[in-house]
């Protein structure tokens, strides 16, 4: 069941990311970008990486996407300009196909791929066998009765997730400390630079 949800979320992320790059109106593109982020965050949370998943929603959806929307909405862009740019879409398709094929070739030479590895297909097959067992034979389903307790996941997650955060902090402040300082300098730059770039000098 959980596997199926993970696959649905992954599929949703892919579908909305395709819709992001094909939509003409930038506001609609950002809406689908939010959808990509939320799907990815749900994927991570279901996988068990809860802290990073929720940080995704807080950082990407709560901060970066709002920034995108503000800039797009306040810039007063004429939609006709963008549509005109969209008409030159076909000129880039050969390049896109070339790079896409190269990428796929590289990936499939590096990573072995089998159809049974796609968990959506295998879980669909499993689901069909399960349903068959459920409705046709009653012998096998009685074996599964034991596993129905009162949601054992809830009790565990209180402990595991917090140690996850503690482990994260431990690695951030010990051997990741140097990169943490560099990141903080970059963030400071990211704070100062927009103020400097967009500053209107009144002369």
């Amino acid at each position, binding site marked *: 069941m959980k596997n199926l949800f993970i696959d649905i979320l992954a599929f949703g992320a892919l579908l909305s990311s395709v819709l992001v*790059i094909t939509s003409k109106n930038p506001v609609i593109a950002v809406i689908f970008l939010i959808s990509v*982020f939320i799907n990815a965050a749900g994927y991570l949370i279901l996988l068990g990486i809860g802290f990073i998943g929720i940080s995704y929603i807080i950082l*990407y959806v709560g901060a970066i996407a709002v920034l995108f929307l503000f800039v797009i909405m306040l*810039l007063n862009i004429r939609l006709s300009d963008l549509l005109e740019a969209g008409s030159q879409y076909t000129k880039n398709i050969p390049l896109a196909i070339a*790079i896409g094929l190269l990428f796929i070739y590289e990936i499939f030479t590096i990573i072995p791929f089998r159809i049974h590895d796609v968990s959506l297909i295998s879980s669909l097959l499993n689901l069909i066998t399960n349903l068959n067992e459920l409705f046709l034979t009653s012998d096998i389903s009685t074996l599964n009765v034991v596993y129905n307790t009162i949601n054992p996941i809830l009790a565990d997650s209180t402990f595991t997730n917090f140690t*996850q955060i503690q482990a*994260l902090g431990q690695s951030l402040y010990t051997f990741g400390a140097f990169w943490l300082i560099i*990141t903080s300098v970059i*963030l400071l730059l990211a704070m100062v630079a927009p103020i400097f770039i967009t500053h209107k000098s009144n002369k």
Partner: protein
Amino acid sequence: MNLSLLLFLIGILGFILNRKNIILMIIAIEIMLLAVTLLVLISSFSFDDGLGQTFSIFIISIAGAESVIGLSILVAFYRLRGNISLNTTTTS
């Protein structure tokens, strides 16, 4: 893992196909960074290692800084040119 690779491919395609639209280009970079973070997270999680989460935090903050600076350049560009289409053939 397939998810992050496909997301990265979609990000690259979006970056190439929308080369006249600077907003969509920044958004495509955002998607690519998301794909990279997912790849790091998922592979480190399947190795039962916590290091991937540490690095994903760094990548997230770099992504935030990148989008902020890109958008501020976009705003400055709009002030200069009056529109944001990257047409090099027409001089406005």
